[in-house]
């Protein structure tokens, strides 16, 4: 278990982290999510010891490690670039930390082979230069190098960001499987919301050096606490006053004064309205074909709304076609306007 209490990090006059409080439980896959420059990597580097906080404490397994040197924290890191030593073989990369600890050669060999087998690196691959490996294999070396020292926690700083989309999805699954197999507490940094949602047990959403929300992927996605989280996670429609007023007529709990949002998949096209659902007539202005689903933009007069419909191969609408857009007021996510100012500050 690792806990951050009131962490503040300053770079000169600039405060990069404001009062960060978060607890990561044992065996948990915990993700720091947020846009570039929001403070997620700074938080990770504070945990690993590369940055010393101006205030607050880092507590690991009940011990205050705020001032403990990097090498004594027992926290493994997988870097964004993997940071594999290019002049060493795969074996030497994995063995590096063990050699630093002056372990016996036989012991080093045993542990390297053991971890290599666990991350599925062959003996032949161990003798190769790291540059000769594929992106996925390099990732496994980076993980093995971090895990061979048997850390209590492993931190990963956007380890998939340099890879192409297909490999990213493939490695994401491998990563999750490995984390489960090792049962190790993992802190993962990413700006990719899809990655965060698919991998994590819990997510902390960062913005401007603060944590906006901590929760499970479902809580973050469906019950976003702030307008920032709601906008940052997934694609969303902002409901303008006219449409909001219409929704308010159907359900008084919707207030047009609020900032109202609705997720794309919660709006439907040409379905029968039920309960308090409202219908807005519109025209399809664009269609984006994604295979599994189709994204439509529908002009409902007062505004355009984006809608995602499952691609069943039958109900496919053409641009210019008139459609009915069906919205349930219960799906509206509302935030009082003041919250925006607070979030921004």
């Amino acid at each position, binding site marked *: 278990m690792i806990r951050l209490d009131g962490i503040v990090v300053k770079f000169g006059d600039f405060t990069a982290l404001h009062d960060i409080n978060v607890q990561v439980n044992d065996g948990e896959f915990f993700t720091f999510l947020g846009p570039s420059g929001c403070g997620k990597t700074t938080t990770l580097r504070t945990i690993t010891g590369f940055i010393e906080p101006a205030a607050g404490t880092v507590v690991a397994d009940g011990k205050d490690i705020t001032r403990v040197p990097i*090498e004594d924290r027992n926290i493994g890191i997988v870097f964004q670039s993997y940071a594999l030593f290019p002049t060493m073989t795969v074996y030497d990369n994995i063995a*590096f930390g063990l050699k630093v600890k002056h372990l016996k050669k036989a012991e080093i060999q045993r542990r390297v082979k053991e971890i290599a087998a666990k991350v599925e690196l062959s003996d032949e691959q161990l003798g*190769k230069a790291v540059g000769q490996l594929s992106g996925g294999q390099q990732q496994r070396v980076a993980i093995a190098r971090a895990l061979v020292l048997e850390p209590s926690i492993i931190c990963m700083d956007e380890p998939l960001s340099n890879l192409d989309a297909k490999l990213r999805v493939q490695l994401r699954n491998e990563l999750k499987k490995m984390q489960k197999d090792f049962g190790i507490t993992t802190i993962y940094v990413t700006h990719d919301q899809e990655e965060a949602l698919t991998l994590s047990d819990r997510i902390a959403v960062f913005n401007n050096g603060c944590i906006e929300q901590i929760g499970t992927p479902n809580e973050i996605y469906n019950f976003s606490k702030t307008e920032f989280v709601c906008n940052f996670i997934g694609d969303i429609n902002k409901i303008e006053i006219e449409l909001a007023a219409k929704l308010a007529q159907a359900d008084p709990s919707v207030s047009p004064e609020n900032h109202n949002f609705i997720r794309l998949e919660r709006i439907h096209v040409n379905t029968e309205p039920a309960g308090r659902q409202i219908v807005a007539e519109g025209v399809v202005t664009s269609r984006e074909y994604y295979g599994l689903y189709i994204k439509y933009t529908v002009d409902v007069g007062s505004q355009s709304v984006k809608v995602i419909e499952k691609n069943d191969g039958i109900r496919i609408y053409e641009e210019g076609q008139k459609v009915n857009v069906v919205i349930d007021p219960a799906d509206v996510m509302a935030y009082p306007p003041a919250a925006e100012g607070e979030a921004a500050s």
Partner: protein
Amino acid sequence: MTQTGKQSGARIWKILLGFGFCYLFFGFMLLPCLNTLTSIFTVKNAAGQTDPTAVIRFFLAGNMKNYVFNSLKLAVCLVITVNVVGTSLVLLTEYFDIKGAKILRLGYMTTLIYSGVALVTGYMFLYDHDGILTNLLVRAFPGMNPNWFSGFKAVLFTMTFACTSNHMLFLRNAIRGIDYNTVEAARNMGANPFVVLWKVVLPTLLPTLFSLTVMTLITGLCAMSAPTIIGYDAINPEIVRLAGSTAADEAFPQARAALLSVILATFTIILLSVLTHYERKGHYLSVSKTKAKLVKQKINNPVVNVLVHIYAYVLFVIYATPVILIIVFSFQNYGAIKMKTLDPTSWTLINYFGKYDFEYKTPRGKIKQTSEAVTGLFSNARAVGGIKVSLLLSVAAAALACLIVVIACTYIFKHKKSGTILESALLFPWLLPTILICYSYRIFFNSNDVWYVFGKNLYLGKNVRILVILAYTVVKLPFALRMIKASFYTIDPELEDAAKNLGSGTIRTFLRVKLPIILPSVLAVFALVFNELFSEYDMSATFHGTEATTYAMVIKAMTQTDQRAYYNLNAAGRQCASTVFIMIVSGLILYLVYGVGSRDLSERLAAKEKRRKRRELKKRV
């Protein structure tokens, strides 16, 4: 070690480093040069009074101006000739479709493996009043002046072909970086190859050409070996002459030498400032998303095509002939070399190995013997001595320069503000002509009053070697810094973090992680610096220390020692052998740097695997 212990250790290191660099900068860059500068204004007149303007008045009234004018004339003319020839070489080998371009390139690149004294003496061997080519030309055109290869035009000719190495390296790279799609686009719009060259290709090469122009101007101004050997009144040889002169011979020679050095430094600083200003502007960055490789352009007009081919091969002959003839004549006996005629019956290795005495009959009929009149390069005590001294000085200086720069770069990359100051200090010698630094050293350290070298006279006896090593090192620091610093940029900062996270300390991280990454570049810089210094003449000639007689000085001396009858008979042959030796050393170094040295770990592992398989196969057989 505790965190506090580590921090105080690091602080001690930082203080020591700071002290070391201050000692280097103030003691061996600033103070000697300032001493030179002040010496101009502290000359004493006949009455023993200080006369601050005496040297300047002397300069304005006497013929000292001529040396400056001559150097400027040479520099300006060189800019034109070197750019014309250098650009032609690159276009002929990279842009136009010329038959035999690969062989032509090999010929044009010969200046990379021999330059300086070796090249000039090679040219003298061919074009001097009794040179092979001069003899041939005089035979063909009896009215021709056999002394045609002398003075300004000979220096200009030699230096024109000697100074195109940078074009072959940098302009070649620039032209290879051109996006071929831009050429195709111009052709598509109706432009012929020459219009494309003028309007599309050359403008993109302008920044490189500008840099090369400035470097050529500086080279021309600071010319040393060609004017010295061929004979031309330029600044540098005059500084060397004055430095060795005494007040008994002429009026305040040292102060005059200092003034000339400072004039040279002023020109250099102005030129480099212009270059830096121009480089900062940044020009013609390629906007291509996908660059297409340049395809050589065919010259469609048959007449022009033939003319261009002739031009290409004439240049090839000019470049390759000295090399070929020197190699061939290095295996000829002294008779053939003396007559400058190839004798198929007199092949020998005597210019390289072995020695023998020479017996001759005097006019009175007596038989006399000159012992060791003919000696090979590696059997001649002076030559071997020169090689040893050059080897020692070059290796020490190259290693020292690399060491200083590696330590400095480690600091520069960690400390942005103080790092910039350190970097500027190490680049300082770039602003000063080599001759000024060496001259300043020679004068300043030729005393027992320099407290920070413990009152030792560094110009005396074998101490001069330390002085030469220091001068070599200081002069090569800017080059080493620029090259090695570039390699530091290739180190991913996360590697250091990763090593730290794995428990590695600063020194271990440096030795095991960072150093192996930059090592190929450091070795390349070491090799290139060594290469330049090994056959370096200008600096050692300025010092002119008996205990620091370098290889280049020995080679230069070989052009003169042939005068005494029956003594040193094969000096010219040994000179050829020396040039061949320098070419072999340089070629080997370039191969090691760009061939073996540039291999990465995967290539090395592949080579290791290949060797292992070969061994296994041998065992089985």
